[in-house]
């Protein structure tokens, strides 16, 4: 890689590493895996940088690589075997406002228990649309599918997520009533 290209890639990596890791976290629900996914994606991007640079949409290409890398990871046997429905560690900040902490824990529950139950491609569509705020067209480009597919996957993903949230809430209220009795 030439010096100018190297400098360009370095700037891109520094600028986008954090956002790629956040997206990866929403895909997989785990910061360590998200870090790995981000590093792998940047490594793949480095291999193809001379092509990507000419096309001038490195951000979209990086998201595409990230998605592919994660989907590939999902197919691996040790990832399939991984269970994510164990107890969450207590990480409440004692100095923070209890209402705020409660809201954050709920958001974490949503991601790690409900969103994780949504099928991978539907989950990816939800993250790209509602976290990355990409348009249907852009999501279709990243996913490598038609806009119609993005819309249908979004609708199905939302249904699946709502069902998972309901199940989560019912489960929580049952546990509370059991504790009260």
């Amino acid at each position, binding site marked *: *890689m030439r010096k100018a290209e*190297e400098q360009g*890639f*370095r700037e891109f*990596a*520094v600028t986008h*590493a*954090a956002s790629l*890791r*956040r997206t990866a*976290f*929403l895909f997989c629900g785990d*910061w360590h895996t998200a870090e790995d996914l981000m*590093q792998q994606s*940047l*490594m793949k991007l*480095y*291999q193809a940088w001379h092509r990507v640079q000419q096309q001038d949409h490195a951000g979209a290409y990086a998201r595409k690589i990230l998605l592919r890398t994660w989907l590939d990871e999902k197919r691996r046997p040790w990832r399939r075997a991984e269970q994510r429905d164990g107890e969450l560690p207590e*990480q409440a900040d004692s100095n923070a406002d209890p209402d705020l902490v409660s*809201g*954050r824990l*709920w*958001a*974490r529950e*949503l*991601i790690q228990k409900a969103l994780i139950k949504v099928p991978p491609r539907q989950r990816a569509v*939800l*993250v790209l649309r*509602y*976290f990355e705020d990409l348009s249907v067209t852009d999501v279709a480009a990243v996913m490598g599918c038609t806009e119609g597919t993005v819309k249908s996957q979004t609708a199905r993903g*939302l249904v699946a*997520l*709502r069902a998972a*949230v309901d199940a989560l809430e019912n489960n929580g209220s049952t546990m509370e009533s059991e504790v009260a009795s």
Partner: protein
Amino acid sequence: MSEQDLRDCMREALWDEPPLNFDPDSFMERAEKLTKRRRALASVGVATALIIATVATLPAAIMANRSQVDTATSSEAAPPSSTKGLATMKWPPNGATRQNHVYAEVQPHLLVVWQDYLSPAIQRTGVDPNSIGTWSPDFQGSSYVQDNSVSDVLRGSVVYSGPTGSAQLDVTIAGPGAWDPAPDQLCQKYYSEPSTCTSTAQGDGSVLVIGEYMRDVQGKRVPAERSAFHYRPDGSVVMMRSSNAMISSVQKSSTDDLIPLTGEQLAAMASNRGITLTP
């Protein structure tokens, strides 16, 4: 849950994001190493594939080339069963007319031929020949008409002690237009079953015929004579014939040892362009 709730939840879920320990320098170094390793691996893979492809295809290509040459040079006439290949050549070539040399004229040149070409060629096969002696006019052609009036076909014989005992090499040199039969008829004429005969067109327009005459020795069929004929584009022919001078007394199980010179050795000597009737 509305879409806006989902947006908010996703942003909220990142509240405990750990600090990013992304070191661009070490990352770039690692990426560069990985790229070099991939390139090296790819190079090794390509080199291995090339070697395998070469090893796999070269013998087949050589065989295909050989069969192509044989097909291109084979005669339209059906070859005798003992003939492996039959090269054609217009015989005698255009302009090849007999020179009707006087024997005394060519004898000095034949002495040079012996000293400079024949004797060293025989020595290269691992034996030490005696003098070839006096060249003499030879019977020639399919009609077996003795032609003593001219000296365009001369024969010299040398008997020497080879690795398998006493051996004999007959050398015949025919000037332009003085040799019969044509190369594509030689095999049919003189090498019927069970003898073998092969003719091959050479790159310089000449034809090389190698024949092996078989006979029964002590109840066993063995090669008794091996000859190489070099038909040259100028119409001349050089023949080398090797045999064991004491063949009837040879008692060996290996028939290959009976003839001291191989077909390749005879062909190399017959193709020697220094061996000619006239300078």
